[in-house]
């Protein structure tokens, strides 16, 4: 039997509690053993096992073999990969309606396409049940049975399927449901012999935008505390929610989000709110800068770029093949474009640039179009949707790939341009 190597400390992706493997609880399997003090009467009881089978699975008090492992604090099920691989947490944040859910769905879809072919990495769901809602969104956009009909992704709810309630005495805490992926080299990867070292679990959260509004976090909904442990932040800046951007684009754009009555959020305030929470929970001094990467994802590029950045149509693919038959990320190209984006942002949203660069040491600006085109209004319901057959993401995967290249060794290499001698 092969030895199973496990991490010395595990971080629960639900409540972010860190614990040694010896404290892991297991979910009982026998039908008589249901009812858990934290999770209610509808789930199997959690227990600290004393008996195991030959495969290392716990045996509950009724003799059933158990397979699900759980956090000792919140009792929620943890994917096994969190025990075997180092885990990287990333946070995606932004105002309501900034496009987080669409961005996440297109990012993961595009990465599933790019990782295997270009980077020779496999990306898979660590827990398909936990990632179910994200997978449903991907199916709506890319696997839809009716690709010519308008499809919509529901607005993310603060109390919906993306949150899990846990009872601590009289109090119920709602934890955000994490999306966990496993990234590991394929058999033909040049560094396959270092598979154990470079494989990672990646954990993402799709918080409802309301959580990031000032006062949006309560004691029973610490939904954004993952900001503190994240290896990097992806902030989605929505130009259609900024009055100056809308004004600048109105003459040339037919996008209903630009032409409509306009809904604005002070996105710099949301970034300040996130910064305050990070400082509070991480114990950062006020003058201390955030040292991890902050990527400002400028969403809905299809709506504003025709006016403000006409070169967008010719934007190059930053994923390029190297001589080693393995793709790399052209970080020089990304950083060049980041500089250009910063100029546009500094001109139209200087308050936001100040907020970002006043908070973080390393700020990168990456434009994205999750759908490749603007939404259409359904004449019957008035709902905004998109036809799956017309979805063509532009740079949707780039922010996360760039983040991986900057924060993780061995997965996403950067391309180094060498001059010919």
């Amino acid at each position, binding site marked *: 039997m092969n030895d199973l190597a496990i991490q010395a400390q595990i971080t629960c992706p639900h409540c972010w509690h860190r614990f040694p493997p010896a404290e892991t609880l297991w979910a009982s399997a026998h039908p008589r053993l249901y*009812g858990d003090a934290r999770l209610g009467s509808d789930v199997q009881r959690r227990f600290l096992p004393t008996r195991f089978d030959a495969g290392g699975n716990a045996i509950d008090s009724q003799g059933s073999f158990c397979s699900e492992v759980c956090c000792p604090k919140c009792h929620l099920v943890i994917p096994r990969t969190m025990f075997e691989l*180092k885990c990287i947490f990333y946070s995606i944040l932004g105002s309501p309606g900034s496009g987080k859910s669409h961005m996440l769905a297109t990012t993961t879809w595009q990465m599933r396409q790019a990782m295997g072919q270009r980077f020779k990495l496999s990306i898979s769901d660590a827990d398909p049940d936990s990632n179910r809602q994200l997978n449903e969104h991907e199916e709506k956009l890319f696997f839809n049975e009716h690709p010519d009909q308008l499809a919509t992704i529901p607005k993310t709810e603060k109390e919906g399927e993306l949150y899990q309630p846990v009872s601590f005495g009289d109090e119920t805490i709602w934890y955000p449901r994490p999306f966990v992926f496993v990234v590991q080299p394929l058999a033909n990867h040049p560094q396959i012999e270092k598979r154990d070292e470079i494989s990672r679990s990646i954990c993402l959260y799709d918080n409802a935008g309301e959580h990031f*509004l000032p006062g949006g976090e309560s004691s029973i909904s610490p939904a954004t505390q993952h900001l503190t442990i994240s290896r990097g932040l992806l902030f989605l800046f929505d130009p259609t929610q900024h009055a100056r951007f809308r004004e600048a684009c109105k003459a040339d754009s037919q996008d209903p989000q630009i032409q409509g009555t306009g809904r604005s959020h002070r996105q710099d305030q949301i970034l300040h709110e996130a910064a305050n929470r990070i400082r509070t929970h991480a114990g*950062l001094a006020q003058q*201390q800068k955030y040292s991890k990467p902050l990527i400002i994802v400028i969403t809905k590029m299809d709506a504003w770029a025709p006016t403000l950045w006409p070169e967008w149509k010719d934007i190059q693919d930053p994923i390029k093949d190297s001589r080693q038959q393995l793709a790399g990320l052209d970080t020089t190209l990304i950083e060049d474009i980041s500089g250009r984006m910063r100029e546009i942002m500094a001109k139209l949203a200087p308050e936001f640039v100040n907020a970002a660069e006043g908070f973080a040491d390393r700020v990168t600006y990456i434009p994205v179009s999750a759908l490749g085109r603007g939404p259409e209004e359904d004449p019957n319901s008035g*709902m905004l949707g998109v036809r799956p057959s017309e979805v063509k993401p532009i740079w949707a995967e780039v922010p996360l790939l760039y983040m991986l290249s900057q*924060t993780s060794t061995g997965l996403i290499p950067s391309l180094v341009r060498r001059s010919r001698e």
Partner: protein
Amino acid sequence: MSFELVYTSARRGLKEGASGFCTVAATDGIPRPLHEKLESLSGYSHTEAATGAEPPVNHSHLTIRIQRNFYHVVSRIGDAGIDYTGRTNKIAHHLALSEAEAAGFPQGPAALFADYGFWHTDWDGEPEAIPPGRIPSSYVEPVEGFGTWAEVFGDAGWAGVLGHAVANGLKPVSIIVPNPDDTMKMLHEALLLVSPRDRWKVCFSTYFSRLAPGTQCHWRFVLDGTTEARKLRARSLGLLVDPRGSTGEPPDGNPFVEAARDDEPNRVHSVARSTSRRGDAASGRADRGGNMSRTPRSGHRRPTQSRHPSSPGARRPSIRDLEYVEEYDDKDAHQGRPRRRKPRKNAKILVVIALLMLAIVVLGFFAMQ
């Protein structure tokens, strides 16, 4: 005193700065813990399983305890078209009643839903504080027999399964229904089998998706085609009524089943045992009788295998033209603060033992003196 709360997606909420999904109306003076709890009960799942039919509405009655106060929460949660951003919306309207107030409605909580003018089904106004004392009228919808159960499931006796579960210690029952339009009628018909004095003890949900901890739901109407229905068919932890998804019939000879088939619900009101016995929150089987304490630890601990995490500054790969950034080692989750090493437990024990031995030696020395 009763409290109301209306929760939906709006440009402006009741709380300063709130927008999107937020409280738009609440009774003046509502306690904050109750406010937060009611917001947390406002979840709604938009589903395509009801394509072609009206979106399902969750009419529910739950009981909650907030600090020392016990409330009956009667809620209406449903689809609310689109919000101001052009996306899906829902509206949740909650009414929290004390025990004394609930006693003023002897027909039970389901009767409160008949006051259609009371319940908000959409919201396009400004946020507002609701004056205290607003209560719906109670009206029992006239119900004749168990015709809806017979029409939906082919046998009115299935309603008896619910009545029997109430009498048998308020065991939870899940009912997978094909159509959301019939659930309210099915609920009213099944309640005929429950003695009026026990109706406030029955917690129900006409569009159930999951149970919030700290609450109970005895009658759970689940829409066929949803994830919850699939999970129940795979494994139901309580009683399951699913005539369309499985073969089976209501148990013959059961007085509640027979009373439903014979359309004589009053026959079983005296059969109902006292439901004051409050079973274990996890109890769905009479023979469980267990407690919820954790399995006591024995001396055995599972041997762990661990390896040192890869050290920072991994060797650069020997691939030409590609380079990897050095990984940030964030074992310390508290950035900016030096990590305080936690003394190992074993070291602490060794120190204590050493001190004890030293004390013994010293005392022995003085004793010999």
